[in-house]
């Protein structure tokens, strides 16, 4: 290997190169000058070394940091919102399942295609009230996003919700006149489900963004 000035820094870190470096220094004033500077820096750095006044200083800083009141990270509020949205979605889903799930409404409808029994209607109306309350809570979560809808997706969701609310209102008017009609009740359930899904998507997308 032909030792060049550029190899000097590497030679200081690799002892195997020191012999070649020394040979090179004999005939290279520039490298000798650079080496002298290195040596001066090393000795100056050694003189600057100073012990801490108090060896307990760092442990004290550590404990002071530990005692600081912990600020909740920014994601905490989002996390709470997530949990709330998730719990509402789960509750709404459960209510939907209780009301119109396969073990309940589906069997009833299978036994009697056209009309509900009194008991089935009572269950449906009770659960429907709870289900709509859950959807309303989901709506409250999504409302700020809907009110300030700027993204095309949010504008679309708002439009869809208006459409669904109008259809639900129309259908409810018919259901009130024909409460035992199984087909109407099923259709109403489907619209509630669609509204829940739309709100859920909106809340989820909001959190993702």
């Amino acid at each position: 290997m032909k030792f060049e000035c550029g190899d000097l820094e590497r030679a200081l870190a690799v002892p195997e190169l020191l012999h070649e470096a020394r040979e090179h220094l004999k005939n290279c004033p520039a490298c000798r000058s650079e080496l002298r500077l290195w040596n001066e820096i090393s000795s100056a750095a050694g003189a600057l070394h100073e012990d801490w006044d108090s060896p307990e200083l760092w442990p004290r800083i550590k404990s002071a940091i530990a005692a600081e009141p912990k600020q909740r990270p920014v994601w905490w509020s989002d996390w709470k919102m997530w949990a709330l949205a998730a719990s509402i979605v789960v509750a709404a889903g459960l209510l939907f399942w209780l009301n119109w799930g396969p073990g309940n409404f589906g069997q009833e409808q299978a036994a009697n295609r056209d009309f509900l029994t009194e008991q089935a209607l009572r269950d449906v109306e009770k659960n429907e009230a709870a289900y709509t309350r859950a959807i309303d809570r989901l709506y409250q979560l999504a409302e700020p996003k809907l009110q300030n809808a700027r993204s095309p997706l949010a504008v679309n969701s708002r439009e869809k919700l208006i459409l669904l609310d109008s259809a639900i209102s129309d259908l409810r008017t018919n259901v009130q006149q024909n409460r035992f009609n199984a087909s109407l009740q099923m259709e109403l359930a489907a619209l509630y489900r669609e509204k829940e899904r739309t709100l859920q998507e909106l809340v989820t997308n909001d959190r993702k963004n």
Partner: protein
Amino acid sequence: MIGRTKIAILLLALPVCALAREEYTRTFDKTVTLQPGQKFRLEHSLGDIEIHTHPSRDVIIHTDIKASASNANDAKSFADKIAVLVENSAGMLAVRTKYPERPSSFFGSNNISYTVRYSITAPETAPVEIQNSFGAVQATGLKAGSDIRTSHGALTFRNGRGTQRLLDSFANIEVSNNEGDVQLEDSNGAVTVSDVSGLLNLRNRFGAVNVSRVGRGATVTNSNGAVHLTDVSGDSLVNNSFGEVTVAGLQGNMSVNNSNGKVDANNIKGAATLNTSFSSVHFSNVGGAVRVTATNSSVEGHNAGPLNLDTSFGAVNVGEIRGTAEIKGSNGAVTVANISGQTNIRNSFGLVRAESTGPLTVHNSNAGVKASDVHGDAIVDTSFGAVLLDGVTGAITVGNQNGAVEVTSTAKGACRPIEIHTSFSAIRLHLPGDASYRLSAKTSFGKISSALPISTSGSLSSDSISGTIGHGQCELRLTNNNGDISILNH
């Protein structure tokens, strides 16, 4: 004691009686012969309709009228009041369901529910109009055109002939096998159409659309739902948003206008115009020209006719283009391969790679350009990136700033001028041994070297040479600032 027990039993039985409901069903049947030129119309709500056809002129009306109430008398009384009105006029046989007025009373008719279901057999040659709500419609074998509208109930149409107009909302529409055109509109429901021999015009919102086997072209307008179109003859157009669009096996020209959804077009016999935003575009096996306009989208495609592509913030990767390629991108890499015609690429902030192209023009900035096997002239300019050209058969013009240039010319025979300029980096030019150029090379803060013999004339210095290589047949200008110039033999 016995009396008390009886009372207790009666009291216990009372809620059970209160919960019990009675149903009553009656039917309505009527047959009317339809006169030539008469159409059949049915206006209904709150129940399903099933209509099919036969060769006879008779319209056979069968209706199941059902009521449910807390006692049999109320159920019967209400069912009896539901009327099926049949009106036969010169141009039309009209059937209408009339429900009794419902005074709202908690203890009265509010406790009654009802539904009416129709089963109609109509002449197959009679035009049909159906208007329903809160009920499904199933139509089979209508051979003289129809206008069917419903809401909150599925609409199914099978084995028809003529022009069909089908409308629904909050429910699915399914159409299969119609000899003729179909016009269809839905909202909040999925739409499936197959085997339509004529034109299809379809509008939907908030629902998926699946179309297959349409004879004379399809126009689909949708939003918030995916659109899949397969095996369509004739020209087709899809407008969509917030949903992917997939088209395949089209015999005519195809146009897709999408936003916020990806576009995938394969096996198109004619030309394809594909537009979208915020999602990707993919195309393959397109017989005609392809035009892609996209924003914030990556584009990938191969095996197509002449290409015109404009995108941003996404990579471009295209190949096997028969004809010219005009590509505009930004903030994404552009890769092209096997383009038979003139290839023009404009890009920024993204590497441009071109392999096996016709004559090539690249305007790039802030990124490199790498091209090989260019059949024709190459004109390249960029900045802050290297330019590597390998195997250019034609004239070469490279303008670069702050980037190296390495060029290999494979020009043979006729004069193919070369002009290269860069700064703050090296120029390396590879020429064949029999190269024939009039050289003018100039640099500052760099050296000029040549592996080929140069016959010089005039002044000679290490940073400026004028002379000839070979017979000096063609112009060769190399200019650099702050970089070397090397002429190499390959």
